[in-house]
């Protein structure tokens, strides 16, 4: 492992924690799972820092690790345990104590997002909140651009019905 890779990964962890957690909540729809997922991602990133190419984006590398751990380890475990994946849309809400108008709206939108299939939730987050282009999202998720387009359209069509 090069010291440069290690330093860059290490420096990128802390600024990415909140966004990693948000990605984890959007994927898992369970806040306890999100905490575990972020912690596992950070550990894995430190362990595999030698695979990080210095000068590239640490945050996106971390996102890829988080997604891989979710798909390969935690999701299947939660399915086996029968928890976390159904009726969990309420994990995607905002803080109930601050129900100013924006948060009421945000809660409604997030609940609607929470009811979407995982692939749509994830694609919407990456493109509309994390700034992935369609091509970048397609590469990150391993699907054609047409699939990205249809996932985004389905998600936005569902949100349009909230009006």
């Amino acid at each position, binding site marked *: 492992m090069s010291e440069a890779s*290690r330093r860059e990964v290490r420096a990128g962890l*802390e600024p990415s*924690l909140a966004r990693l957690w948000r990605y984890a909540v959007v994927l898992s729809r369970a806040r306890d799972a999100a905490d575990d997922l972020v912690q596992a991602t950070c550990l894995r990133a430190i362990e595999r820092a030698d695979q990080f190419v210095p000068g590239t984006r640490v945050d996106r590398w971390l996102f890829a690790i988080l997604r891989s751990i979710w798909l390969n380890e935690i999701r299947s475990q939660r399915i086996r345990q029968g928890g976390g994946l159904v009726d969990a849309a309420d994990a995607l809400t905002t803080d109930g104590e601050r129900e100013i108008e924006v948060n009421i709206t945000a809660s409604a939108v997030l609940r609607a997002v929470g009811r979407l299939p995982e692939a749509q939730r994830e694609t919407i987050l990456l493109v509309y909140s994390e700034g992935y282009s369609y091509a970048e999202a397609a590469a990150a998720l391993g699907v054609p651009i047409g699939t990205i387009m249809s996932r985004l359209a389905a998600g936005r*069509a569902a949100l349009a019905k909230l009006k």
Partner: protein
Amino acid sequence: MTADDAELVALIDNELDEGSRAALLTRLGADERLRQRYEELRETASPLATSFDALLGQAPVARLRAALPPDEPLRQRSRRFPGIALRALAAGVVIGLLVAGAVAWAASIFGLLGGKEDWRTAIAEYTHLYTNETFSPFNPDAAMQAAELSAVGAKVGASLAPENVALPGLRFTTAFMLSYGDAPLGVIAYVDPSGAPVLLCILANRAPDAPTRSERRGDLSLAWWSRSGRTQLVIGRIPEEKAIALAQMLEKRV
């Protein structure tokens, strides 16, 4: 969702190519219902961004930060020992297991051995460090498996892919690089259903071709053969016959 939604959303997101964009704009100019749908979809952009921002504000950053492992600079221990040395840490398991201190122990043992001929002794000593918990947590997807194997294969001069190293009753967990003396040493780690590790080690030592041989070392069985300038070794807490059978399977494929 309508048939046009995907293109409308791509237009809103400025992701349509020029030809499709021009065609859709022409249609929008002539179709009021399409324009209405465009507006409905366009109005979802801002609430989405705002909502995700609100979620970001709820991240338990302090708790997550407190859970980060301490930042320890890398130690350059490997140069001090003439036996097995860390060459490239291609898998997290190596770091977790070795950097924590086992590397110092293992490397000092191997240093005492002289590091010239008896690489099987070195590997056996090394394998004694592994437990049923060492590799079990690793469950890479197909792409990660292929990437790890490809990286190790490139170092030892072998063509390694998930399909040609797959073994019955064993699950691939990780592949990583070590070195023995100056020779690259690739390690492919499997586990059986109980988590017990079985390793395929590939040493690029320019050895002449030799058929499979085997031996027992304590509770470990070893089976090895040489071909194309590489010596391959199967090792694990398995019956000697099983090690030989695995070696013969791999001999035809690796």
